[in-house]
């Protein structure tokens, strides 16, 4: 039987008796092993997972994956880092506990860029995470394993986290849906921190409705996370009606307009053409899309602001990783040597580089110039977005410059223009804590590409509705990568 279905469909099959939860779990585990062999998508596979109770709850009895930076009680949680390679927590993240109430069954912990600090899937301690559409390409990161496994049809959903675009970019590269709700809608308690003011929990699914169902189950105010807020009056799944007529969207000229890229590669051209074609689909539904111009200095600052703030918070957040209380104990004659040894051996060079940047911008003599100014510019960008959100319902943008890049970089089509802004603009969503969702909107070079919709804080329903309406105009809902042989899905 083919289990590449939406959550609603699977629930119906479960309640009809067409399939049992145990069968779904075993099928999921079988596929997970196959996908892991090919894509290195998992840190841990929970082979002793058993089917669960099926109730009226749409999620009950379904298998799913958890990104390895979520603390899971009794289950190895490494954040894909050698610094925590044997760490088994004694408590679970609030989001995981919330999901557990829905009788879902975790079948694995997914590999990721080490502690979420990367967008390539090439810094996990278990090896490069590959794109199930083309194993020579990146899955994107940092929620690489979650994206790859959902895209390969292992299960209907997996948890992700997003500090810059870590859910929304791999979703695009893997041709699936990636949604991070408004900051604080889902508690971060138990999520290994990267940059606390930018970190979001969220999910990767194959449809907008599934994303709504999953986040409905993950969200909720948590006394353990003071930045969480009461969203009990928000019902994402129940609010999806696809009614978008009269909505006003905008995209940012300085990032999207072809004129910015006179030397664009054919892939980039195709990607941007495809973006505009997708906008037409929305216009058919009575949605207007404006091209809006924003001060180029502000746009150009996005990436450096992100680097400054995320690296600074990361150096501090990861100061607890000393190998003293948890993680492999370092060697040395005294505690400082032991900590140094643990950190030198444990972290990948990318993380160390970011720690150096973070420490540098926080130093007394540099702090005002870099860190504090970055905070100011973050505020300016967020203010500008909020000003636009007064006039517009949402921002709609293409994700990155096209399909996933090659792992070794050798075969990538090179665009000579600076495309940083196109690659990094999703960070705006983290600056403001805005609800933001990526959905697949077609193919470039036979590989999936994505489009992103971002709205104002607490307006998740609106953002999801626009994505839902757009998804229904395209044939990519619930698509999977042709990684496994046909019989693996039967």
């Amino acid at each position, binding site marked *: 039987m083919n289990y590449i279905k939406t959550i609603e469909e699977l629930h119906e099959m479960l309640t009809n008796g067409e399939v049992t939860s145990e069968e779904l779990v075993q099928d999921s585990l079988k596929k997970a092993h196959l996908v892991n062999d090919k894509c290195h998508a998992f840190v841990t596979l929970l082979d002793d997972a058993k089917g669960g109770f099926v109730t009226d709850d749409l999620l009950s009895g379904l298998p799913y994956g958890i990104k390895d930076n979520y*603390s899971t009680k009794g289950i190895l*949680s490494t954040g894909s880092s050698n610094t925590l390679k044997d*760490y088994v927590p004694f408590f679970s993240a609030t989001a995981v506990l919330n999901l557990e109430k829905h009788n879902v069954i975790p079948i694995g912990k997914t590999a990721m860029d080490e502690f979420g600090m990367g967008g390539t899937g090439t810094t996990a301690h278990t090896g490069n995470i590959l794109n199930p559409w083309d194993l020579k390409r990146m899955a994107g990161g940092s929620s690489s394993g979650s994206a790859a496994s959902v895209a390969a049809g292992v299960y209907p959903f997996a948890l992700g986290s997003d500090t810059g675009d870590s859910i929304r970019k791999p979703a695009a590269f893997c041709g699936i849906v990636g949604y991070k709700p408004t900051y604080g809608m889902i508690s971060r308690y138990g999520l290994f*921190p990267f940059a606390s003011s930018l970190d979001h929990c969220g999910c990767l699914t194959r449809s907008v409705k599934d994303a709504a169902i999953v986040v409905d189950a993950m969200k909720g105010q948590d006394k353990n996370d003071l930045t969480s807020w009461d969203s009990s009056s928000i019902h994402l799944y129940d609010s999806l009606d696809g009614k978008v007529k009269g909505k006003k969207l905008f995209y940012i000229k300085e990032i999207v307009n072809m004129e910015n890229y006179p030397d664009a590669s054919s892939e980039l051209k195709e990607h941007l053409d495809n973006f505009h074609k997708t906008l037409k689909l929305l216009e058919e539904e009575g949605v207007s899309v404006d091209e809006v111009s924003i001060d180029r200095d502000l746009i150009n600052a996005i990436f450096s602001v992100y680097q400054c703030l995320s690296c600074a*918070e990361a150096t*501090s957040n990861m100061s607890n990783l000393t190998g003293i209380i948890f993680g492999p104990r370092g060697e040395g004659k005294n505690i400082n040597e032991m900590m140094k040894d643990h950190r030198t051996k444990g972290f990948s060079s990318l993380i160390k580089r970011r720690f150096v940047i973070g420490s540098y911008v926080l130093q007394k003599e540099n702090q005002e110039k870099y860190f504090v100014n970055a905070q100011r510019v973050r505020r300016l960008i967020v203010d500008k977005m909020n000003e636009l959100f007064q006039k517009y319902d949402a921002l709609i943008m293409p994700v990155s410059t096209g399909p996933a890049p090659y792992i070794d970089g050798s075969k990538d089509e090179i665009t000579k223009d600076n495309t940083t802004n196109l690659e990094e603009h999703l960070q705006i969503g983290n600056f403001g804590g805005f609800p933001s969702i990526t959905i697949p909107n077609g193919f470039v070079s036979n590989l999936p590409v994505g489009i992103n919709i971002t709205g104002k804080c607490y307006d998740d329903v609106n953002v999801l509705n626009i994505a839902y309406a757009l998804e229904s105009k395209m044939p990519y809902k619930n698509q999977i990568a042709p990684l496994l042989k046909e019989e693996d899905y039967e």
Partner: protein
Amino acid sequence: MNKYKAVIGLEMHCEMKSNSKVFSSAENSYNDTPNANIRPIDMAFPGTLPTVNLECIRKALLMSLVLNCKQPEYMYFDRKNYYYPDLPKGYQITQMHDPVGVCGHITIEVDGEEKEVLIHDIHLEEDSASLDHYSTISLIDYNRAGVPLLELVTEPCFSSSKEAVMFLEYMRRCYQYCDVSEADTKKGQIRCDVNVSIMDEDATELGTKVEIKNINSFANVAAAIEYEIKRQSELKDAGRYDEVEQETRRFDEESGTTIRMRGKVDAIDYKYFVEPNIPKFKIDPAWLQEIKKTIPVLPRERKIKYIKDLGLTEYDANIIIKEKEYADYFEECVALGMNPKTVANYLTVQIIAYLNKEGITLKEFYLTPNLLKQIIEELEKGTISSKQAKEIFNKALLEKKEPKTYLEGTTQLSDEKVLEDIIIKILNNSQSQIEEYKNGKTNLFQYFVGQVMKETKGKANPNMVRDILTDKLK
């Protein structure tokens, strides 16, 4: 006498009293069992987040008000980043940008003179874990990690170790009065950093400041200051003042000296930034007003009142304000109508001696003000002698029975007619003594008093006996 002027500033860290820790839900209580009062965040397990104990914020604001500080509009916290084995997160949550109080002042008394102490700031932060070092290993106890700590920083406004210690003593009392802390140095609840510099009497520019960190008793604060003034003065005398370096030292209790830890160039850059996991929140002025109303009358004001309005000696007043529970007990007694001087006398002598002997607090003391009143009232009426009062006091405490149960049978003989009859009878049988008395042997008066006491088995009201005798022996 030193020919240089010393300039001293203090940092006073005080562990606060609260049910739970300041950024953790673990219990905040002294625990002999290491690592018993801990939650995952106290050991900085990955993914843990701070919570905020509002009661600690309330108490911090209260102390800010006591110190006449300016309170910030918004409450938020900062991270102070450094690596140390007692700091599991690798940073301490504290307040750097906008402390709970700045620019304050408080008046203390030094040798009967008023002194205004200027407060730079007071801020709320978390304590670190405690370390026990052994020859080959060190042990970490996380019970203390996250315990609420108030750090009070004065301006360099003291000129002697005495002033500094008087201030610390006074502040300790204020913390106790406001129920903010037990402020017990024996439990390590107060730790001080001291900075000391010296300058010529007539100089206008401050000398080189030396900081002595982490001193755990007021006696050591005094010793460290004294030693540092001496050390710096000697160097200056010898023309080697340039050897006094801006540095951090520690106090070595055994040798009574200070020892260099690190110089200015090794100063740690703490890379402070705003704690992102605790959202900024506005301090409601109405809340601040409410807090203000809960400030108790502070020891200095009480002392003034006791001396001026209640007629106590400064000596007694000083003893009574030493502990809030003494002062509260005293005031309760006075409110019940007892004579302040009599109560003060009882409190400063018998009661405190009893508490010390039994090792109990006034809260555990059997004779509440209402029960004490049963004794004091009779004593003042003259129905019992002070000797009898003491006996009842002791018996009541021993047997834990109300004093009035002992009053019957011990009541003084104060009936004038009866006393007069007894006295006439005794005088009639003492003709020769009367003769001698009248011839100038006046100390025989005590003999007559003794006879009356003997006859009445000690129950005669001594004042009345004295009056009647004086009259009859004219």
